[in-house]
């Protein structure tokens, strides 16, 4: 019982410590340090590619993607047409018996 009361007292005392915490002043030169860091950040931002803004980056990405898709689409379409043309020529040759079936070197 006494132990329980003692523990409760300890708990109350521990929680009560929060009411005794005094105000801590902001460290000296804090403002100066923040302004220095801000200045350093600004200097890093003003780099060679400062003109390459996020909007420009996005636009460039879109153009590159469009070019890629366009090229792939064109290449795919071209290969399909070539395939169709080849089979058309073969069919024509077969129809008019122009295609040689012999594999002999003498022919």
């Amino acid at each position, binding site marked *: 019982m006494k132990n329980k009361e003692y*523990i409760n007292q*300890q*708990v109350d005392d521990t929680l009560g410590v929060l009411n005794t915490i*005094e105000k*801590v002043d902001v460290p000296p030169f*804090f403002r100066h*340090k923040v*302004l220095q860091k801000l200045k350093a950040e600004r200097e890093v931002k003003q780099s060679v590619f400062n003109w390459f803004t996020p909007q420009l980056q996005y636009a460039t990405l879109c153009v590159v993607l469009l070019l890629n898709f366009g090229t792939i689409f064109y290449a795919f379409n071209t290969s399909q047409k070539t395939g169709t043309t080849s089979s058309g020529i073969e069919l024509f040759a077969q129809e008019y018996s122009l295609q040689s079936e012999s594999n002999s070197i003498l022919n």
Partner: protein
Amino acid sequence: MNQKDFLEKLKSGDESTFAQLLNEFEQKVFATCISFVPNKEDAEDIAQEVFLEVFRSVNKFKGDSKLSTWIYKITTNKCLEFIRKKNSKKRFVFMQRILGNEIPVDKTSYFTEVNHPGVLLENKEKSAIIFKAINTLPENQKVIFTLAKVDGKSYQEIVEITGKSLSSVESILFRAKKQLQQKLKAFYKANPS
């Protein structure tokens, strides 16, 4: 100067306005930081980061709340970020969370060294215990309890910062206090002095 004009000048990147902002808020922000992270050096680093974030993000601030509320929100988030980062390095706490176990008030698992200049010497031991106990609370309880009982913010301020209702804040605070009492009882039972 009213808030609107002040904000316009801040957004335009006016340095003297930013210096004025620093002047007005440095003490308050630092006080909140050291309430969450009771280490003077860490609290100073976090407070610096808060102001840099304010400067970076001021153009995103729509002015739908008070400037002070917005700054306190950033402060709270930066403190929580710091605590999460440091806590995740402590594998013991991580595993306890995963296993769903009660996180004990363990002096060795705290994320920083308790070095709060505002704590009286005779209360150093107990202050370390209470800060560590607060750190084991669920995040929402930790935030509200710290803002209310350590940083001394009013309920209205806490409502604005957290976006919760007054009844919610009161309820969470009540639960936080109950949990802390239980944790401290368990601690003192296991560690009789």
